[in-house]
C-alpha cells in the first residue's frame, strides 16, 4: 500500500468525506428514480449509484491509509488546529458575497472600487500608493470587462438616480 507523509487535517477531511458519502448512499433511493420495464442502462439511478459506490470504496480505502499514518505520526491537537484554520477564509467569502450582493444595487464600478479599497485596507496595505494602485486595479478591471469586453453584468439600481444621459452611459459602460 502506498503511504504518503502524514499531514495534519487529513483525518478530519476523511471523516467529513465518509459522512458525506454515507449521506449520499442513504439518499440514493430518495434522490433518484427507478422505472420498471426500462433497461438498466437507461435507469436514471444507475450512473449516480456507480459514482457514489466508487467514491465510497476509495473513501474507505483512503481512510484506512490515513488511519495507518495517523497512528504513527498524527496528533489530535494538530488535527483540530488544522480544522480551525479552515475557517480562516470564511471571512473573505463573506466579503466576496457582500460584493456580489452590492453590484446590482450600487453598480459594478462603485462596488468594485469599494471592494478593492476596503480589502486592501483589511489586508494591511495602508500606504497612499497601495490604495491608489488598488483603486486603479479595480477601475482597470471594470473598464476591461464591462466597458470594453461588454460582459453581462447587471447595471446598478443607483444609476437610475443619475441624470438621463449619465444614467444610460453608466448603465452601458460601468
Amino acid at each position, binding site marked *: 500500500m502506498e503511504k504518503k507523509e502524514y499531514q495534519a487535517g487529513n483525518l478530519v477531511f476523511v471523516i467529513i*468525506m465518509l459522512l458525506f458519502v454515507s449521506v449520499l448512499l442513504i439518499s440514493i433511493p430518495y434522490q433518484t428514480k427507478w422505472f420498471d420495464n426500462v433497461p438498466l442502462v437507461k435507469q436514471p439511478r444507475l*450512473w449516480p449509484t456507480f459514482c457514489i459506490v*466508487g467514491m465510497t470504496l476509495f473513501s474507505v480505502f483512503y481512510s484506512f491509509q490515513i488511519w495507518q499514518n495517523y497512528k504513527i505520526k498524527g496528533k489530535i491537537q494538530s488535527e483540530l488546529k488544522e480544522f480551525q484554520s479552515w475557517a480562516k477564509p470564511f471571512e473573505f467569502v463573506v466579503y466576496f458575497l457582500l460584493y456580489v450582493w452590492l453590484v446590482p444595487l450600487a453598480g459594478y464600478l462603485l462596488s468594485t472600487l469599494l471592494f478593492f479599497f476596503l480589502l486592501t485596507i483589511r*489586508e494591511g496595505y495602508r500606504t497612499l500608493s497601495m490604495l491608489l494602485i488598488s483603486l486603479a486595479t479595480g477601475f482597470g478591471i471594470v473598464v476591461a470587462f464591462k466597458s470594453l469586453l461588454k460582459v453581462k*453584468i447587471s447595471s446598478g439600481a443607483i444609476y437610475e438616480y443619475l441624470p438621463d444621459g449619465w444614467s444610460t452611459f453608466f448603465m452601458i459602460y460601468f
Partner: protein
Amino acid sequence: MDVILSSFEIFLRWDVWVAILIGSVGGVIIGAIPGVGPAVAIAILLPATYSMDPIIGITVLLGIYGSAMYGGAIPAILINTPGTPVNALTTYDGYSMTKDNKARRAITLAYWSSFTGGIFSIIALIFMTSLIAKVAPLFGSRDILMAALLGLVLVVISHRKQTVIAGMLVFFGMFISTVGMESVKYTKRFTFDQSWLLSGFDLITVLLGLFAVSQALILLTGNDKKVPMPSLKGGKHEGFFGFIKYKTVAIISSCMGVIMGIIPGVGEFLAQFFSYNIARGISKKPERFGKGAPEGIIAAEAANNAVPAAAMIPLLALGIPGEALTAMMLSVFYVHSIIPGPDLFENHIDFVYGLYESLFIINIIVMIFLLVATKSLLRIIQIPQRFLGITILGLSFVGVYTLRNSFVDCIMCAFFGIFGYVLKKLDLPIVPIILGMVLGTIMEQKFRASQARIDNLFNYIDRPISGTIFAIIVIALSIHFWVVWRQYKKKETN
C-alpha cells in the same frame, strides 16, 4: 491546399492577431506571477470569451495556455519559486545556476528550450492531422467511452503516492456532474428538492471555485514573502550556444512532451519527469543534475512546453480533454457550438489549421517578447501575494457573475473555493475533480448511446479501437500495481 489557404483566411484577420497578442503576452505575464498560473487566468476569462467569435475566444485562451509556462520559468530560475506548478522541476537546476551567477544563461536556456518544445509539438501536430482526420471518424461511442475511461484511469495513476485520493476525487467529480435534471427520463437526481440544484453544477462555477477562488483565499490568508529584485547578469548568447550544445536533449524532451500530451490524463508533470530522467541518463555528467545542469533546464522546459499543443489532439479529435486546462477549452468549444470530435476534422478542418497557425505565431511572439522584455517582467514577480489575492477574488466575480448574473452561482463558487482551499492546504489534487466532471458526463452519454449495439459486456471491447484502448488500460493498471507492489516489498525488506 485549399484547406490551408482557407485557414489562412481565418488566421490573417486583424482581430485574430489582436487575440494572439493579448493571449501570448498576457500568458507570459500571468505565468511569471507566482500564485496565479494559467488555470486561474483561463477560468476567469472563460465566460468573457463566450461573447467573442469562437476563433478569437479560443485563441486568447490558447495563447495563455501556450505561453504561461514560458513566463513561469522566470521566477523558478530567479527566486526558486515556480511561476506555474509545472515549472517546479526547473527550479532544481535553474536556481542553482542563479546562485552561481549564471541567471541570464539559465533564463536563455529555458526560453530556447520552451520555444523548441512549443514549435516541435505544433509541427508534430500538423503532420499528424491527416492521420487524425483518417482515424478520428472511426471512433464510435464505445471507443470514445473507452478513451474517456483511459483518461480517468491515467489521471488517477499519474498522481503518484496520491492515487487513492485521486480516485475518490475523480468519482466525486463524476458524481457532481450527475446532479440536476437528467436528459433521458427527465427526472431529478440529488437535488434534495432545491430548485437551484435543478440545473446542476455548472462546470465554470466549479472551475472558478476550485482554481481561482481557492487560490485567492490561499493568498489572502497567507503572508507576503519579501522578494529581492533579481539581477540578470551575463549575455544572452551564452545561453543560446549552451542550448545548441544540448539540442539532442531538447528534441528528445520535446518528443516526450508530445507523446505525454497526446495521452489523456497524463500531462506536463510526467512529461518533464520522464524527460529529466532520460536527460540525466544520457548525460556525461549526471551528478550535476539538481546542482545547475543546463540539460536539466532544457529537459524540463522543452517537455512541458510541448504538451499544450499535443494535448489538443485528444481534445480536437475525440472531444476528450486530457487535463484541466483542455477541459476548460472544451467548454469554450461547446458554448460556440463547435463540437470537438471526428466531425470537426471532417467538416471544419480549416478551423483546426487556423488554431495550429495561431499556436505557431503565439510561440514566436512570446519568444520575441521575452528576449526584449525580460528585465521589465522582473518587477511583476514582486507584486505582493495578498494583493494578488484581492485581484483574483475581484476577477473571479467577473467570471462567475457574467454566466447568469446569479447570486446562487456565486455561493456555489464560494463553496467550491473553500473546498479547493482545504484540498490545497492538505496538498491534495484538484484536477481529478474537473476531469471526473467532464469525462464522467461524456462516459454516461456514450455508455447510453452504445447500448443499441451491446448484447453483453464483451461487446464494449470487441471493436479494434475499443479493444486496443482497453488493453492499454489493463497494461497501465498492471504496471501501476506492479510498481506499488515492488515499493511495498522494498519497504518491508528495509
